[in-house]
């Protein structure tokens, strides 16, 4: 008589090998998430052409120095701005008017005022230039009287009056680089994780839902007529789902890291998140298998569940910032906790940072998966 492990392996390998040759499984596990993450990561992170050109006319003054060494340098470093230096204000005005520069910063010869030249066609560039200038001017020691004026080209505002106004209202504006905060992950990784977890919930259906297919095809009865206990069949199907989930997630981590520049964080932490995320997905599909009457119904339910969990869980856009019920609901999804695990590892945190999210994923898996396995076990006994 064969050992339980030998039976489970025989059952697992027959199914798993078939799935690897099954086109629809490969599409959902590999091709679709890879294609989507490629497109989306270019959309969110954007190629370098989005750097904003800004011209500067600098005087020999502390403000100029602070500007050039402080915010301008750092914005240039992280590819937000391209800074070009002009000799005189006239040339810069022309460049901004012509659109060669999207905004201009002129530090007056006396070093006491800064004029920001904006182009109505490029409001974002103007806002950045203005914010940069204002914060610099107000924080430079000894130039408390420094003023900043914003002058929209083609407009008729009086620079001096505008400067007075600004100073009166001044509170130091901040230019915060959203990609550098400790509670955000870079957009490419976020997109890759979102797509990977989204498609994971489609991919795992290929193991456990096979129970319903085999029941209909009659091969399940034939297996159970042999000296094979029902639990071994269930375990083998769960393992197929699990293995397919790992293949899909592993591929997505590797693909996005190597080809798209994603940075998932500490590999051990990522591995823990992947294993517990796949466990949660397999638990979900087990419950669906236990509740559905036939393979078609199960496939439809699983697709609906994957879609809802994916959207609510923030696979496409974060729900956490939506507030209210959405922010609450998103925390019920495995997708949210997977992403949250990655977020907590940013800023150089090691794998221990994922403990909370991993616990949440495993809790989800237990709550959904235990009744799921009981019900799926009935599919085999019926």
């Amino acid at each position, binding site marked *: 008589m064969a050992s339980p492990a030998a039976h489970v392996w025989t059952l697992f390998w027959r199914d798993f090998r*078939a799935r690897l040759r099954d086109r629809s499984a490969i599409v959902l596990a590999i091709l679709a998430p890879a294609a989507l993450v490629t497109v989306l990561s270019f959309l969110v992170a954007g190629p370098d052409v989005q750097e904003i050109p800004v011209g500067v006319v600098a005087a020999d003054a502390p403000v100029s120095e602070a500007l050039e060494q402080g915010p301008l340098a750092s914005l240039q470093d992280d590819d937000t701005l391209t800074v070009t230096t002009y000799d005189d204000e006239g040339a810069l005005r022309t460049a901004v008017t012509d659109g060669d520069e999207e905004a201009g910063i002129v530090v007056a010869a006396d070093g006491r005022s800064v004029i920001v030249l904006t182009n109505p066609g490029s409001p974002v560039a103007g806002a950045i230039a203005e914010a940069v200038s204002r914060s610099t001017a107000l924080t430079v020691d000894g130039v408390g009287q420094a003023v900043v004026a914003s002058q929209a080209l083609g407009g008729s505002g009086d620079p001096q009056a505008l400067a007075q106004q600004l100073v009166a209202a001044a509170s130091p504006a901040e230019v915060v680089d959203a990609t550098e905060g400790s509670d955000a992950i870079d957009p490419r990784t976020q997109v890759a994780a979102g797509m990977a977890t989204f498609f994971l919930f489609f991919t795992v259906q290929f193991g456990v839902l096979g129970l319903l297919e085999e029941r209909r095809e009659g091969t399940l009865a034939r297996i159970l*007529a042999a000296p094979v206990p029902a639990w071994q069949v269930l375990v083998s199907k769960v393992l197929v789902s699990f293995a397919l989930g790992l293949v899909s997630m592993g591929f997505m981590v590797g693909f996005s890291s190597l080809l798209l520049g994603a940075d998932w964080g500490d590999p051990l932490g990522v591995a823990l998140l992947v294993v517990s995320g796949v466990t949660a997905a397999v638990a979900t599909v087990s419950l669906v298998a236990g509740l559905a009457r036939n393979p078609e119904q199960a496939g439809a339910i699983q697709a609906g569940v994957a879609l809802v969990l994916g959207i609510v869980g923030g696979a496409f856009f974060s729900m956490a910032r939506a507030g209210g019920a959405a922010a609450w609901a998103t925390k019920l999804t495995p997708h949210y906790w997977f992403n949250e695990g990655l977020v907590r590892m940013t800023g150089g945190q090691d794998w221990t940072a994922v403990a909370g999210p991993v616990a949440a994923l495993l809790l989800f898996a237990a709550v959904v998966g235990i009744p799921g396995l009981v019900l799926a076990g009935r599919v085999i006994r019926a």
Partner: protein
Amino acid sequence: MASPTLRVQGLRKSFGDLQAVDDLSFEVAPGETFGLLGPNGAGKTTSISMICGLLDRDDGEVEVEGTAIRPGSIRGRELIGYVPQEIALYPELSGRDNLVFFARLYGLKGAEAKARIDETLEVVGLTERAGDPVVDYSGGMQRRLNIAAGMLHQPRLLILDEPTVGIDPQSRNAILEAVAALGESGMSVLYTTHYMEEAERLCRRVGIVDHGRLLALGTRRELVALVDQHDRITIRVTGQAAAAAEALHRLDEVIQVDATDDQTLECMVATASSLLPRLVGELDRAGVGIVDLRVAEPSLDSVFLHITGTALRD
């Protein structure tokens, strides 16, 4: 019957209001091929599912070689070979790989498994096509592989559920011959069918089921006796059929005789085999030459019609 291979006692199953199997009891002796004959919906498959331990039963017992078969327990499963009514194979795998898979579930591996698989492929005539995916097989070939997968592990009892449904006459014949050979090799076989001629050809004893109930059980002759049917002898003679009929009337065992035309006689007799020598002698004495003589024993068809009041249909 001394310690039967299969003993089924008081088996019952209902689906809601429908009593699919109703107090079914029978035994299959070692080496016997037993037929369960009944129309579609009679409860054959439901009975077999319970016998194999695949379906919970409402009541009753099943024993194979003294081992109780129960759902949820794998005891005794290796004693049974199960050939389901539908083709239960993996179409993407080759015929051989299907057999390798099922062999492993019965604990067969290595050289032993290979030998058993080769032998079984030979029996069902699929050696040549063993490497091809099952999806490319004809319906008849799939049916034969379906049987092969159930008999690989040399079970004590092979259960075949309508194994010839929907295939060409040639494949059907090959399957019937293979089953007959298994019976001769000493394996016990439980064979369900709704084809009268298959039951007559393969099985010494037959149980007739309808609406979940076993209506009659016995050898063909016992069943026929049940409905008081007679053998029919058709004789073609050289002439004077009326005179010949007159002569045959003198034999006690002849129940009825008619001359259907000048050269043809139709006789009803109780048992043709014992009567034939005297019948031929009587015609000879009457000076009537015999051109042709045929004996038709009563078929299960008429038995079925008699018991259920309806003809067995396909």
